[in-house]
């Protein structure tokens, strides 16, 4: 017998179990690999994962300033619990009394205006109500008040508005769905959740427009980029390197500069319009501050992202395939459609995915050349948090866009297969 089999585990030369010995040998490698990637992991965690997590939280947290609404209005929340706004009656005397108590505390902490602004997102007018009531309510002494309801309505008639109280009740939890409702153009009324009037459904319209224009831009970059990439892949290396620099040149120029350049070219008194008039046409074209301007400028800006993956895929397709197809009797068109084009689909997939996802989140270009009807959802998100300070709604819109892009990515994966995408 050449080999004796033992019942126990396989042993290494020094008598320790082989598995343990192997694990020890591999552990050092693993630790070293982890150390090398640690900076990247930390960076991704801090700059990517955490902001996204924070955005997701923002979109559902019910806060005014830095504090949760129920923490600012603890007594009001408790008193409103049993109140049903659909009865058409104002809340109880105790609720009004609680409001005075909580409001005074909020005024002390300088939170009442933030609170007003928070409720104003839901029901316009509440911001001014809270601001105006501030000083008067702060001077009240709850112990001396017999009829809190009358006193408060005396300060401002709006305290008798049942809709306002309904808003407070609806937003008295730590978490709220109202930002998502707003993002989907719905609102909460006393009768329940309803869609806004069709002409006020601004976010739906913006989202659809963003997706549609991004799709159009993706198609344009493909239509323009495909022949360019083919040419680059087909030319001798020296010539193609030179042309490649021309393709990459926009990459090395500031986005702002490129967008401004398009502004100069396309504007009413710009170069293209001047040529148009010089050619004998009488009407100046409106090429900018509309959707056309956005499509032109963004197609140009995003073109390299289409050309590069296409080029890298086409570079790997030997010219002999087309020759083989022709020698087998295929016309140029058939050879292209049946043999060349199918082999470039991984590049088309990569380019289209890249351009589309970049376009959906684009901000500067639509902001500068989009005008009124060419803005994207990103411009509205920016407006919400920078001008209105409504971080919750901005976060909800951002989260929805993220979800849509992930959904599209998933659908794309199902249809094309992400393994078939080649970036280089």
């Amino acid at each position, binding site marked *: 017998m050449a080999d004796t089999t033992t019942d126990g585990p396989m042993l290494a030369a020094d008598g320790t179990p082989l598995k343990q010995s192997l694990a020890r040998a591999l552990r050092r490698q693993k630790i070293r690999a982890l150390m090398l990637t640690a900076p990247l992991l930390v960076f991704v965690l801090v700059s990517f994962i955490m902001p996204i997590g924070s955005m997701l939280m923002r979109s559902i947290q019910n806060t005014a300033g830095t504090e949760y609404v129920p923490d600012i209005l603890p007594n009001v929340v408790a008193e409103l619990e049993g109140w049903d706004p659909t009865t058409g009656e104002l809340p109880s005397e105790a609720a009004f009394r609680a409001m005075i108590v909580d409001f005074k505390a909020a005024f002390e902490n300088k939170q009442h205006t933030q609170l007003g602004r928070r409720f104003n997102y839901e029901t316009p007018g509440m911001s001014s109500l809270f601001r105006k009531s501030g000083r008067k309510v702060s001077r009240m002494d709850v112990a001396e008040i017999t009829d809190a309801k009358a006193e408060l309505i005396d300060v401002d008639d709006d305290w008798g508005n049942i809709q306002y109280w309904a808003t407070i009740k609806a937003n008295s939890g730590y978490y709220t769905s109202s930002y998502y409702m707003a993002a989907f153009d719905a609102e909460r009324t006393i009768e329940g959740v309803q869609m806004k009037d069709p002409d006020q459904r601004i976010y739906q319209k913006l989202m659809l427009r963003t997706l549609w224009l991004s799709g159009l831009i993706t198609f344009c970059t493909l239509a323009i980029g495909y022949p360019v990439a083919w040419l680059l892949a087909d030319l001798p290396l020296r010539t193609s390197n030179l042309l490649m620099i021309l393709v990459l040149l926009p990459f090395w120029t500031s986005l702002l500069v490129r967008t401004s350049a398009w502004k100069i070219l396309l504007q009413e008194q710009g170069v293209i319009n001047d040529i148009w008039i010089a050619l004998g046409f009488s009407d100046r074209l409106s090429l900018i501050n509309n959707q056309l301007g956005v499509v032109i400028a963004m197609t140009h800006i995003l073109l390299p992202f289409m050309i590069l993956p296409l080029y890298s895929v086409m570079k790997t397709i*030997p010219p002999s*395939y087309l020759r083989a*197809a022709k020698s*087998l*009797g*295929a016309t140029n068109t058939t050879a292209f459609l*049946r043999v060349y084009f199918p082999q470039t689909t991984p590049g088309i997939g990569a380019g289209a995915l890249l351009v589309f996802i970049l376009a959906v989140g684009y901000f500067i270009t639509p902001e500068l050349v989009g005008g009124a009807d060419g803005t994207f959802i990103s411009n509205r998100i920016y407006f919400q948090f920078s001008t209105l300070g409504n971080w919750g709604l901005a976060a909800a819109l951002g989260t929805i866009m993220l979800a849509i892009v992930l959904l599209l990515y998933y659908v794309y994966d199902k249809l094309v297969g992400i393994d078939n995408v080649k970036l280089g």
Partner: protein
Amino acid sequence: MAQTHSNDAFVAFERVQKSYDGETLVVKDLNLSLPKGEFLTMLGPSGSGKTTCLMMLAGFETATHGEIKLDGKPINNIPPHKRGIGMVFQNYALFPHMTVAENLAFPLEVRKLGKSEREAKVKRALDMVQMGAFGGRRPAQLSGGQQQRIALARALVFEPELVLMDEPLGALDKQLREHMQFEITRIAHDLGITTVYVTHDQTEALTMSDRVAVFNDGRIQQLAPPDELYEAPQNSFVAQFIGENNTLEGTVQELRDGYAKVRLDSGDIIDCKPVNVGKAGDRTLVSIRPERVEIDKSRLHPDAHTLKAEVLEFVYMGDIFRTRLRVAGREDFVIKTRNAPDQRRLKPGEMVEIGWLADDCRALDA
């Protein structure tokens, strides 16, 4: 240069020239014709113009001057897809996104054949190359030799009368290559198709072809059947390119009765057959095959000239012995002797006298 100009030539190049840059000719005044059913190999070093000729025939390059005829009709202005020529490429060029069967069906589809007819032909073609079970595979799932067979089947499936092959066996290992050489010639002869085969491998050219066209510098140096090419090279390029060959430099001293005496630069005189020399006094390169050198003086003509040689190296190669000698001042003179029981095994340092039949020693152009 052998030229066959006949009206029944199936493929004919007539005074064809090709230039890429307008300054140099890659193909210079090419005249070539081959009858139906012939297996012709274009052999030559890289850059000799053989692939360019093939590409012109296929229609991927246009001739700068001259005419190419297929079955009597000029095809210079016919695009490649209308020529109906089958072609096997160096890297096979099997479409990677199609299965083997789809690859084979492609030329039939573009010819608008019906489904059942297509399937029958695909099956027949696959069976012909013994790949019947592989129709559903992708090219990437096949080995090099299998891909080669499929490429061959695809080039033949639409039953072309002419098939071009551009170094189709270059990527295979030696054993597989030898096997495929045999397969290709068998299929080509069975189907009776005309084949133009390009290679830089002279063994391949010799074993497969009816005739071989040796290309160099844009010209056909010699067009002949393999045995004639090997045994009777017309110039020193062909002699050196085909098979192993010893060359000695010298001057023609005397031409008489169809034989020549050549004085080598070392002063020795040898007997040769004049092939490509003009008159006495001309410089010449004398060429002799290693296996035609005789070391047994008793087997030579009594008054044959012999040369003194010193053994430098003896290599045992199994079936033959390869011995390197110093002859007439050159140290690269090689002889090959058969491994027979009575064969002499020379030892380095030994002095021998070598000679040959004058018919085996060819005086060629210098």
